[in-house]
């Protein structure tokens, strides 16, 4: 066996295929655009007849000419433009492959259906299988299956650390290929999620525009409102908050641990590109009418024909969530293995920065929890497409069981969305307040405690659902008990500030703001756990206020703290602190103006997820005024976000050089250059002490290869953990 080890970028040359691919892709693209346009403009009503299908492929009359022409032109253009690009794995080839994959999946499904004597075209099966094959082809186009394919064949595959071809610093192009460098993937995630947040934020502004005044003005009907509201929730949760931590952690955690990369770099890249595809499936549903059932997607609203027939957008949600969920699980497994097995010598569990602890717990929650949400959405899919009766009460199904399965994931999910933030904020506070974390071990253990308790309280979202009444007592007590480990964290952060030397840097501002808003959200959480009170405010704006205080005031504030904290590390440049502060104040004031009055509206009787409140405002006039105030707050936040994007994009290119350790932090990621070298370290570092020993003269967290005392420290560390995998020196 002396076959040469292949390198991954060359791939299979596709010179003769490129033209054909271009024409087929062009045809499919033109046909899809035409069809989408028709559906959107109401000219085509999908009911699955073969005539519809012909029209969709552009096979009827004038369409044939139009689509052929467009296909030929686009094919030609793609062939010319992509001659090189198609030969190489990458985004362009992947895009064409999406069209081909969808066509293949749809054709196969229709063939099978014909063989069984069914109408060839039916929305459900064709779209579902089309998306599955489109995904597989797209990853193939990116080159994602390649080395696994070689491995299966028995061919030699490149060493997993060897992504020299992938992280080759060819500039911006690095970010559009199947790159396995964790730092590139981290940035890919961050840019992608802020793009999604822009979309989700636009939806929020649309929702607020509608609610600024009673009656319908902005949207045509309740259905449109529900679409914007659902999309806002889904994007913010699944395409922003959860993956943004994957991005930050991807960049920072391997360096914090003293590792050259994640444990499974190829899996890491696969997770990212899967996430992007899943997100785009959500977005692709916008022109054909998105899902309308809210992010909770309760059966039977999502699963029944019902009086208002479920739209195609619902299928997109059901497929998108599977892909995004799979990506989330892959990332989580990668983090668990990395944190358990890739720590540098001397990095004991009790020396890990708290961001690592938070991420480890989060990853465990994801691996245990996410299969449940996947399962619940599969059941909805089967009810719709295959006619099963999981939730169809007429034939013995049980709609409440949906809620149990869904919340068994989705309550832990709220901790998935905040635990990394809890850890991150500790890193920020200790560094910028120049003081050790107060009660480091208590902070770490309470993270695990929250994660564990998080699995025992799901039914607190169901106090009014009509579930078994006895469940309410244990769920209430357990939910309230989560406040205890959460309180430990709050104690840790406040006590860390005591007798500290606080520097009011931009990341620190976000961290301090977080303490106010998260405390508020945590307290309303305890209020909500009191069943009699929750029965009154469940499904009202009080709940909306609560979870925005924990999600925005909690998670998002930590995200911005983290972005500003690590921006100099990632880019090597410093952001503009003035603009950073402006961003903070706009968002901090804006979010409180937005979310605080929501408490009052909720207790007063304003249900959530409504497009109009004129009856309520007629009875309680202040409802209108407060809603107008809330919309002003939302505009302030939007403005803040624009300032943020401007600051990031300009400082990235033109900001002053930041140096390696502008915050004088002790943790490992600050001991290397900014941005860090390709494999993070030149030689394995060795960890010799606690991560936050500020105030202790001469204290060190870690020694880099070659620093005085390194050899002795390494020998000492290896005595304690001889099996530590020493990362290759470069």
């Amino acid at each position, binding site marked *: 066996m002396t076959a040469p080890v292949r390198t991954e970028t060359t791939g299979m040359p596709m010179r003769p295929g490129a033209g054909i691919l271009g024409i087929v892709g062009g045809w499919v693209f033109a046909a899809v655009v035409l069809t989408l346009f028709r559906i959107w403009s109401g000219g085509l009503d999908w009911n699955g007849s073969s005539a519809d299908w012909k029209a969709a492929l552009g096979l009827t009359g004038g369409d044939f000419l139009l689509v052929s022409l467009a296909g030929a032109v686009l094919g030609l253009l793609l062939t010319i433009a992509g001659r090189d690009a198609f030969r190489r794995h990458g985004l362009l080839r992947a895009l064409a492959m999406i069209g081909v994959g969808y066509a293949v999946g749809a054709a196969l499904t229709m063939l099978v259906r014909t063989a069984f004597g069914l109408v060839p075209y039916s929305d*459900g099966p064709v779209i579902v299988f089309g998306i599955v094959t489109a995904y597989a082809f797209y990853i193939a186009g990116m080159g994602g299956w390649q080395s696994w394919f070689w491995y299966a064949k028995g061919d030699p595959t490149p060493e997993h650390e060897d992504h020299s071809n992938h992280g080759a610093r060819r500039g911006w192009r690095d970010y559009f290929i199947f790159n396995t460098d964790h730092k590139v993937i981290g940035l890919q995630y961050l840019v992608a999620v802020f793009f999604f947040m822009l979309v989700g934020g636009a939806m929020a502004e649309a929702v607020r525009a509608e609610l600024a005044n009673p009656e319908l003005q902005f949207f045509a009907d309740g259905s449109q409102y529900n679409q914007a509201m659902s999309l806002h929730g889904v994007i913010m949760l699944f395409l922003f908050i959860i993956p943004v931590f994957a991005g930050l952690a991807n960049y920072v955690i391997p360096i914090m641990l003293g590792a050259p990369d994640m444990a499974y770099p190829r899996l890491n890249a696969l997770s990212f590109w899967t996430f992007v595809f899943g997100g785009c499936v959500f977005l692709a549903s916008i022109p054909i009418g998105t899902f309308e059932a809210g992010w909770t997607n309760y059966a039977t609203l999502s699963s029944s024909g019902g009086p*208002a027939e479920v739209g195609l957008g619902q299928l997109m949600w059901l497929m998108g969530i599977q892909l995004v969920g799979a990506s989330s699980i892959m990332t989580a497994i990668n983090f668990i293995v990395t944190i358990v097995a890739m720590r540098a010598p001397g990095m004991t569990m009790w020396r890990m920065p708290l961001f690592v602890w938070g991420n480890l717990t989060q990853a465990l929650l994801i691996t245990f929890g996410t299969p449940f949400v996947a399962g619940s959405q599969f059941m909805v899919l089967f009810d719709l497409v295959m006619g099963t009766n999981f939730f169809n009460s007429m034939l013995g199904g049980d709609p409440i069981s949906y809620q149990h399965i869904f919340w068994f994931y989705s309550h832990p999910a709220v901790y998935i969305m905040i635990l990394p933030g809890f850890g991150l904020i500790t890193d920020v506070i200790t560094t910028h307040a120049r*003081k050790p974390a107060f009660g480091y071990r208590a902070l770490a253990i309470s993270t695990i405690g929250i994660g564990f308790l998080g699995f025992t309280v799901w039914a607190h979202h169901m106090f009014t659902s009509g579930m078994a009444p006895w469940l309410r007592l244990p769920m*209430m007590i357990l939910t309230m008990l989560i406040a205890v480990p959460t309180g430990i964290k709050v104690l840790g952060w406040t006590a860390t500030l005591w007798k500290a*030397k606080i520097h009011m840097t931009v990341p620190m501002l976000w961290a301090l703001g977080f303490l106010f808003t998260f405390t508020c959200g945590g307290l309303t959480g305890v209020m909500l756990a009191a069943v009699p009170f929750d029965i009154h405010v469940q499904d009202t704006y009080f709940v909306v206020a609560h979870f925005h205080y924990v999600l925005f005031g909690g998670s998002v504030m930590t995200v911005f703290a983290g972005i500003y904290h690590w921006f100099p590390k990632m880019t090597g440049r410093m952001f503009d602190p003035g603009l950073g502060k402006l961003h903070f104040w706009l968002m901090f004031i804006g979010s409180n103006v937005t979310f605080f009055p929501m408490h009052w509206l909720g207790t007063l009787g304003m249900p959530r997820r*409504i*497009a109009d409140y004129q009856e309520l405002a007629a009875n309680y006039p202040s409802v209108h005024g407060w809603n107008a105030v809330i919309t002003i707050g939302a505009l302030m936040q939007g403005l803040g976000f624009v300032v943020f994007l401007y600051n990031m994009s300009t400082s990235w290119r033109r900001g002053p050089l930041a140096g390696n350790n502008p915050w004088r932090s002790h943790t490992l990621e600050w001991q290397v250059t900014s941005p860090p070298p390709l494999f993070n370290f030149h030689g394995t570092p060795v960890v010799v002490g606690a991560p936050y020993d500020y105030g202790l003269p001469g204290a060190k967290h870690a020694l880099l290869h070659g620093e005085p005392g390194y050899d002795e420290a390494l020998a000492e560390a290896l005595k304690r953990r001889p099996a530590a995998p020493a990362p290759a020196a470069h």
Partner: protein
Amino acid sequence: MKGQWGKLAGYIVGTGAVATAITLLPARIGIDGNGWLPDLISSEGGAIDDLFWGLTIMSLVIFAIVCGIVVYSMVHFRAAPGDLGDGEHIHGNAKMEVAWIVIPSIIVLVIGVLSYVVLQDNEVGLYDKAAAKKPGAAEMVVDVRGFSFGWAFRYETKEGEPLSGDEDAVPSSELVLPVDKVVRFNVLSCSGKEHLGRIQEQVSRELAAGDEADEFAEIEPGICEREWDLTTDEDQKAAEEDATRTYEALMKRQDGKQINDEEQAVLDEQPRFHGDQQFIDVNHAFWVPEARLKIDAISGLRTYVQWEPNHVTGPDDNYQVVCAELCGTGHNGMRTDMCVVDQETFDWWAKLDEEARRDATCTNLRLLTCLGGDVDDRDDAIADVAKLSKEDPDAACDAVKEKI
């Protein structure tokens, strides 16, 4: 050192004062008089409101302590410009951490127990059949049907006998309740067409089974079909025919036979997704904010809630039954009027037929209270009020007293 703690206490009090002021803002600016909460018309709501205010005060105190310390630190532990030194090397304090575990645990357990007591008091005999005779248990029953997008109410005695004495009485679309009686609401989400769905399913299963049709046991009718069926015999016949036609067209195509336009039309009418689900309704939630209690209306699964209205609603009390669970396009409009009347008026109202009930809407019943308790002939009075409110939708008590 002493001065430091005194100052810290000052910060905590100050933070608490600011937080309290902001929290109570709506009571001042809100003009609605109630501040946070809507009017209260149920006996159960009192304890819930007390619980709410208790929790709010507790939250304000904790917020003041935590954030007071943060504000104090922000002011007093700022690094001077250019100071590159570190803070004090304090790692933790075991005593403080233990206290921070024990005290909150006690607080939440107390809240938990108090909440549970309130819950128990509000649900006497609701789930516990043995307590059904105790004081505080339900004295009458209202069957509530939520559907997309509206409500229907049927009145029964505790034993399930119709109050009007008529089994087939048409349900009311507004909620009228007698004052000072504990009412149990049996809540259900039904489209009213479940029967058709079952017939269709049954027919197509039997057709598919052919000669072995006997092997298919009858599909059991669900609770919606038994209690809220709205279909007529014609509907049923149409559904059976529809199912047969669809099935036959499907079979013909499957066998490769030519199908005619009519059959094509039948097939084209098939719903986009699997057919048998279009007959059930989605979840709603039955909520009167002024009563403070709500329960979901689940598709085909009965749920319960009970409360005692304790105020007769006057002409300005425009309370409504609100749907609190997202149910689709018409969710925000899924509201209907509710009112509370005295016992005699209720007894009179409950016996009205559909025709007579048209005048006795909640709007008019509320206006009727202007005349005081002693109305001799309610039929006449309500007709007068109805005429008045039709002429002047904003009619107030003065107008009623003057004209009638």
